[in-house]
């Protein structure tokens, strides 16, 4: 049949001819269109590869380039060779799974054993560079200059020279050798900038800008030991770095106060004898400290486990309630004689069709004590989101409303797949409607519903929006301002990691790994149980 199977080795003598492969005309040379499509897609993929390699090349990341080349080569091999028919179907999924599931998990795990956080984002060299650069202070009473950047050679590479005009209108030239007078320079009277000087080429703003990195390092040495540095294109000041790094002692010395800060490679910052640290630190590995922090610290541990308990209760009760409500509505609308069924179904599905973000915010406003719909309509004075249990009820209520249409849709589909004869047969055998439902319909329904219920549970376990947009995890008790009554692990993590001034990625990653493990265990256990359920039914 197709050339691909043909080239994959002609059927051996005596072996039956292979059946046609699925996939229609895309599998082989079926049509010229299919081939062109293949060329276009492969070309697109290669282009994607090249696009990914360029920045990696610039950054000198050879491992990354090797990986990209390997992936592109793999794709070519799979789609051009004839031996790899199953791989053609599996490869895209596997690639996406790796890129969007496995890599993030691995990255999160690797982050969880570091102290990556604000003040510890970069490496040690960056921290030292920042400490030195940020300590350049303008010397008091030092003169201020109007700056013109020039060069003695080529504008792009020639040695830099600062043509400086002081407050009295005298011109000087500063190079890396020092400051000298500059006679016979023409100065623009309004701006004070040197417009022409013999032997120097004045750089245009874009030419100066192209050498920004050089300029940042460049300082004209002066007698006092300080340096004249540029500030923008047209001014210069005299200043000196007050903090200097010394490689020998691996320490930073503050020349003004005389305090010495020693590098602490375990904590990733420079500390003085008195325990004062310099603000700029770097990222270091901290082992399992991040995990230990919430498992061993009594406050964190008690927050963690009480939140875990509520988290499971939340996910379980939402899943149970959406299932019950969704199924009840589905059963009601399953009655064959009912008229206007489509209309009702559209009505029921409406909450599902609206933006859940907007709905959550709407629900939050409806729970407002003084101005909310609930209290006004019912004449109540319930502090819905201010009391732990009413806030929990509110969050669950809003989620059931938003979640049941989905369950209704699935249940309706599953119900329609169950032959009505089974129910009728049960009735003939003398079963009441409840018995027929309980022993015939429900078990059949569960085969289709169980995986959905597990997915709903896993989704609600990490349902960030549901809690964050309604109660933001609150209310908080005065004893513990970090863990609120409706906090899920994910909102708790978010608050700790991102919502404070100090983003603590390492710690948040450790919490995420814990959540990942918990959800994995729950999912694996329930999936294996559901398999058992199906086998029983068969």
């Amino acid at each position, binding site marked *: 049949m197709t*050339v691909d199977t043909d080239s994959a080795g002609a059927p051996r003598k005596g072996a039956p001819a292979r059946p046609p492969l699925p996939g229609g005309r895309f599998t082989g040379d079926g049509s010229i269109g299919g081939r062109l499509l293949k060329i276009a897609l492969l*070309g697109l993929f290669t282009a994607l590869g090249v696009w990914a390699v360029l920045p990696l090349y610039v950054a000198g990341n050879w491992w990354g380039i090797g990986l990209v080349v390997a992936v592109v080569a793999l794709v070519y091999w799979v789609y051009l060779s004839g031996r790899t028919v199953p791989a053609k179907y599996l490869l895209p999924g596997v690639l996406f799974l790796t890129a969007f599931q496995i890599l993030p998990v691995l990255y999160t795990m690797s982050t969880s054993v570091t102290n990556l956080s604000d003040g510890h984002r970069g490496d040690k060299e960056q921290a030292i560079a920042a400490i030195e*650069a940020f300590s350049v*202070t303008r010397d008091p009473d030092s003169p201020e200059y109007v700056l013109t950047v020039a060069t003695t050679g080529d504008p792009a590479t020639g040695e830099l020279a600062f043509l400086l005009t002081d407050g009295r209108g005298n011109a000087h030239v500063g190079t890396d050798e020092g400051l000298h007078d500059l006679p016979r320079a023409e100065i623009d009277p309004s701006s004070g900038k040197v417009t022409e000087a013999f032997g120097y080429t004045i750089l245009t703003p874009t030419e100066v800008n192209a050498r920004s990195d050089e*300029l940042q390092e460049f300082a004209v040495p002066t007698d006092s030991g300080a340096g004249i540095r540029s500030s923008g294109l047209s001014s210069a000041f005299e200043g000196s770095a007050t903090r200097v790094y010394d490689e020998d002692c691996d320490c930073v010395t503050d020349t003004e106060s005389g305090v010495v800060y020693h590098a602490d490679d375990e904590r990733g910052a420079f500390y003085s004898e008195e325990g004062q640290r310099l603000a700029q630190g770097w990222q270091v590995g901290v082992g399992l400290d991040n995990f230990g922090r919430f498992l061993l610290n009594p406050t964190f541990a008690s927050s963690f486990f009480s939140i875990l308990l509520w988290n499971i209760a939340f996910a379980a009760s939402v899943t149970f309630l959406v299932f019950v409500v969704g199924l009840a509505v589905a059963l009601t609308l399953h009655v064959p004689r009912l008229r206007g069924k489509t209309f009702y179904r559209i009505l029921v599905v409406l909450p599902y069709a609206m933006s859940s973000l907007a709905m959550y915010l709407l629900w939050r406003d409806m729970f407002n004590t003084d101005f909310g719909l609930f209290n006004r309509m019912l004449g109540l004075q319930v502090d819905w989101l201010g009391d732990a249990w009413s806030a929990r009820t509110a969050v669950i209520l809003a989620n059931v409303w938003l979640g049941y249409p989905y369950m209704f849709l699935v249940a309706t589909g599953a119900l329609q797949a169950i032959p009505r004869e089974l129910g009728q047969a049960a009735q003939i055998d003398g079963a009441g409607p409840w018995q027929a439902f309980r022993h015939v319909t429900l078990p059949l329904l569960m085969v289709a519903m169980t995986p959905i219920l597990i997915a709903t549970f896993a989704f609600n376990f990490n349902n960030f929006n549901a809690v964050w947009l309604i109660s933001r995890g609150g209310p908080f008790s005065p004893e513990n301002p970090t863990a609120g009554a409706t906090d899920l692990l994910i909102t708790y993590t978010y608050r700790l990691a991102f919502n404070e001034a*100090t983003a603590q990625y390492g710690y948040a990653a450790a919490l995420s790994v814990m959540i990942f493990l918990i959800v994995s265990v729950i999912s694996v256990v329930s999936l294996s149980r559901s398999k058992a359920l199906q086998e029983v039914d068969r």
Partner: protein
Amino acid sequence: MRFRSAPAATGIAAIVLMATACGGGGGDEGGETAAEDTLVIWSDPERADAIQGAAEEFAEANGITVDVQGLAFDDIQGDLLNAHQAGNAPDVFIGAHDWTGNLVRNGAVQPVELPEDRAAGVEETALEALSFDGRLFGVPYSQENIFLMRNTELVPDAPETFEELVEIGTELKEEGETSEVLAMAVGQEGEPFRMNALFTSAGGYLFGQDDTGTWDPSDLGVGSDESIAAMEKIAEYGEAGEGVLRRSIDTENDAVLFYEEDAPFFIAGPWNIGDANESGVDYGISPIPGFEEGGPASPYIGYHAFFVTEGSSNSALAQEFVTNYVTDPDFILSLYEADPRTPVQTEALESVSADDPNIAAIAEAGADGMPMPSIPEMGETWEPLGQAQAQALAGEDVREAMEAAHNTIAEQIGG
């Protein structure tokens, strides 16, 4: 058999196609070298067009292009830190002064040296607010502070004290003119930013200050007796007391209460002016009144500033832009026209105040204000303090709430 080599042909065709596509892109690469002379600025979308327009002159004078990219203001700090780490940060960005400490400790911004004549034109407190360890890290251009907005039809004269405000508001409520005394956002989690005026007037403090005004993070005042007494005083107006300050009023509904004339007073910010004009309510602006026997009420002052990213490949131009251009009155005035914020450049402020009485009134309301502390530790205070304040207003034990918040903050900033 002529299809034998078909896979190879397909592969070659794909590579050729890719190569031609890249060949076509060659023109773009030429554009990339030109892109080196593009100054990229991050701003919030509201001001992006104004900055783009105002920077045109700078671009022309220096033979470059300026590209202003709009991001939600609250996202700028986080996105910038991530982009800086990844090496694709903008050259210049707009930010709030209280980010300074965090930006500096992450090494994400460059120090800026203002020439003396430029520095002299800018309010000194604004420059101090943008300094860290004695070095200036951003060039301030506008300031904002909250103030009291009142419905002048119901209340012709501004109240002098908070007690007077409550008295007037309660009277109006009893007469049935309004249903609320004051629209001041508290919310379930508290609003320490708005509460600061009353909190300072009643004697509370967050961090100690030394003689030069430098904040001292080791002197945390949240759980101090002064702060607890201050919150106890404020709680008298809470849900268990007069019912003026309630958690059910939050940032979602506070403005509406005022615009619909349900509340005669409103703790508002400059961001409310536009809507207030549209609502048709006759309003007046005055300072937030302090307590009768308390100190002056100090609302937080926030400065917006332009920062230069550390490691920017256009740092010379970026530095030139912030030192000599952002401090220029003409630039500030053209920004003001697009987005009216109180300038901190003295000359621009004078010219603006002459035309717009609101600006003068807002500046006056901020006269007793204090710049929000820009030390990184400040960020750790918002949530715990807000919760404690909300609990105090809800009628919980004030001391317990404030001390718990104090411990939480101390634990966070100690670590």
